């Protein structure tokens, strides 16, 4: 028996959030897919304290509230610390004609009416905060004809930021979820089949806890899933009950299979694996921005030949190799792989492809950089602002690390003379 979980389809509209939730529910390590950063520097990893997050919301998001095309969302712990919930605020929701279309796609309780509600979040529990601008344009169907799909448009045009708290927070979230499952399971007086849990969560922690598990009877598993896990997932996803479906992969007759295919939403099936051999490769894109400047947009802040402070938060592409499409062709090179999620592939096969592609792509990038731009890959990486942020030294902090230089004696004398003169003519207003 295997279990497949459907994440609310409505969330697919927000691809990145959807992927995050998929990873959250499915993986033992954090995996978030970001196809393309239109403004690479807009990605930021939260290392700040709760106060700084609040400051961010106050200083950066509040001033934009008048913008008609802003969507702000957060995913955070609930106060019980066991679940995650999502909230959104869309600036034009109250008066906008798109309200109904939005509301029909996303559970109404997800939306907060007052933007102020977002700022009273338990910031320590903040998991993801994202800001989409240009929402109005998208909702009005302002798709450019050259894009084939809504998704492509979003990828190309969304000006978004994703803020993630550090790895510890994620681990705690995951651990909390895992332990709550275990506790509940024990209350039922039974233990899980490790294989079944792996299929549901793919979570190393859970697997370890349940290594010595005994197999439950099918009806016990079903009861547990329906009574406990299902409800918890509904709450965690702020979804509707019908959006989360557990199905039993029992052999079906031909007719059953056909009807099942017709009614079932397309399942997001992710498989995770750790690509140990390549985890020190950098994943990024080399592209030109509209100002014709060369950029390397990193996906993972680990570089073997560049010294960047450790403790990085690993952000990975969740796209399998075989979905590389024409939208990436405006890049000179594109690297999208490390620990990727392959669908329907064996881990060995995926790993070998991963190694091959990462290695050859990095070599190509190096060659191009040396030949055309007379620079090295490491240097190109460092030109990217976000690398500095990823390294844990945001510019705001970096400037506080600048050492102090007192004026020389000679300059000090000049200053004293000038002070008198300036005082005489000083007028601020």
């Amino acid at each position, binding site marked *: 028996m295997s279990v497949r979980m459907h994440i609310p389809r409505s969330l697919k509209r927000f691809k990145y959030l959807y992927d995050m939730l998929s990873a959250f529910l499915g993986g033992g390590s954090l995996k978030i897919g970001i196809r393309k950063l239109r*403004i690479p*520097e*807009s990605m930021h990893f939260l290392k700040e304290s709760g106060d700084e997050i609040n400051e961010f919301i106050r200083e950066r998001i*509040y*001033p*934009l*509230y*008048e*913008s008609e095309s802003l969507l702000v969302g957060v995913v955070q712990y609930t106060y019980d610390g066991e679940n995650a919930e999502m909230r959104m605020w869309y600036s034009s929701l109250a008066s906008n004609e798109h309200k109904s279309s939005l509301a029909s796609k996303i559970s109404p309780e997800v939306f907060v009416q007052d933007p102020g509600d977002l700022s009273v979040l338990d910031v320590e529990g903040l998991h993801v905060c994202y800001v989409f*601008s240009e929402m109005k344009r998208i909702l009005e169907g302002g798709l450019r004809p050259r894009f084939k799909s809504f998704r492509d448009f979003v990828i190309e045009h969304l*000006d978004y930021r994703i803020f993630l708290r550090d790895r510890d927070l994620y681990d705690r979230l995951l651990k909390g979820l895992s332990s709550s499952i275990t506790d509940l399971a024990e209350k039922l007086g039974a233990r899980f089949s490790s294989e079944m849990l792996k299929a549901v969560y793919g979570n190393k922690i859970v697997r370890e806890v349940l290594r010595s598990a005994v197999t439950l009877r099918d009806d016990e598993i079903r009861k547990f899933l329906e009574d406990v896990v299902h409800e918890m997932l509904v709450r965690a996803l702020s979804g509707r009950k019908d959006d989360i479906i557990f199905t039993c992969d029992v052999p079906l007759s031909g007719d059953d299979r056909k009807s099942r295919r017709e009614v079932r939403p397309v399942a997001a099936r992710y498989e995770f694996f750790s690509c140990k051999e390549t985890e020190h490769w950098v994943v990024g894109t080399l592209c030109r*921005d*509209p*100002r014709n*400047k060369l950029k390397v947009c990193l996906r993972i802040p680990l570089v073997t030949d560049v010294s960047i402070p450790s403790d990085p938060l690993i952000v990975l592409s969740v796209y399998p190799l075989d979905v590389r499409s024409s939208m990436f062709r405006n890049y000179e090179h594109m690297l999208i792989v490390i620990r990727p999620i392959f669908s329907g592939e064996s881990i060995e096969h995926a790993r070998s492809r991963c190694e091959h592609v990462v290695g050859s792509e990095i070599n190509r990038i190096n060659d191009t950089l040396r030949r055309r731009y007379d*620079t090295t890959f490491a*240097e*190109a990486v*460092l*030109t*990217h*602002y976000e690398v*500095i942020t990823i390294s844990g*030294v945001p*510019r*705001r902090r*970096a*400037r*506080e*690390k*600048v*050492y*102090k*230089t*007192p*004026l*020389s004696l*000679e*300059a*000090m004398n*000049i*200053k004293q*003379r*000038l*002070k008198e*003169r*300036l*005082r005489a003519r*000083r007028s*601020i*207003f």
Partner: protein
Amino acid sequence: MRTSLFRKENVVLLLGPTYAGKTSFIVTSCCFLSYAEKKLNRKIFVEGHLPGVYSTTDPQEVCTKTILRATIISDEVKLRGGRGLLRIVSVSGHPPESGVIRDDIEHFVAGLADSNLRFTFFFDLEYDLERHITMFNDFFFPIINKAIGRDHVRDILLYNKFFVVLNKGDRILLEGGIRELEDRVEEYESTFLALLIKSYDLPEEEVLKSYRSYVTFCNVREHAKLRDEVRELLKNAIRAFLDMCKPVLGPDEHRSLDGLVGEWLRQK
């Protein structure tokens, strides 16, 4: 000596530490410009390249969509007055952690060497003065010296005049009052001028005549009702902007723009 057949490009280069408010200054100016263009029914803003908007011909877009704190290499706006074109450019004030960023900035500044260049030095009144000194000594002065040449920089400072913008005056004003603000402005301005005089071997008397300073507030996106004093600081920012634009604005243009400042501020 050969002279160019073409008129030299007018450029104002903004230099200052990160988060001093260089991008905010440009954004604030564009907000005013957007208002003024509508009132005068005349196009002044030609194009802008800023984080978040990239290339735009709409000052309102710069005003509302620019992402502050995100300048990697440079920001730029181009304006057209009755007497020609003006570029206002700012370079990243990021501490010199990366050689490549510094190289890029040097290349960018070197490209301005042949223009009719003027410098604007930005200060964050909340940021430590001695760190400002480090950044000018170790980052900005070496960059412009290398890109333009020390003697040329010296000539530009003396003959083209320069601006000093002491930003975030509102915070000092609200926390410490007017007296505190005056003291701090005096301290920052005199220190910087002394540094400049010493670094470029400039005559004191000439320096005092060749610059203008402004105490400003550039957070035009601040939505709270502004206090009168803070509004005055915002006015200073627009004054600084108009003074920078003076070489390309006709006298009537400058007067009419100046006349709109008060009206624009009343909305704030």
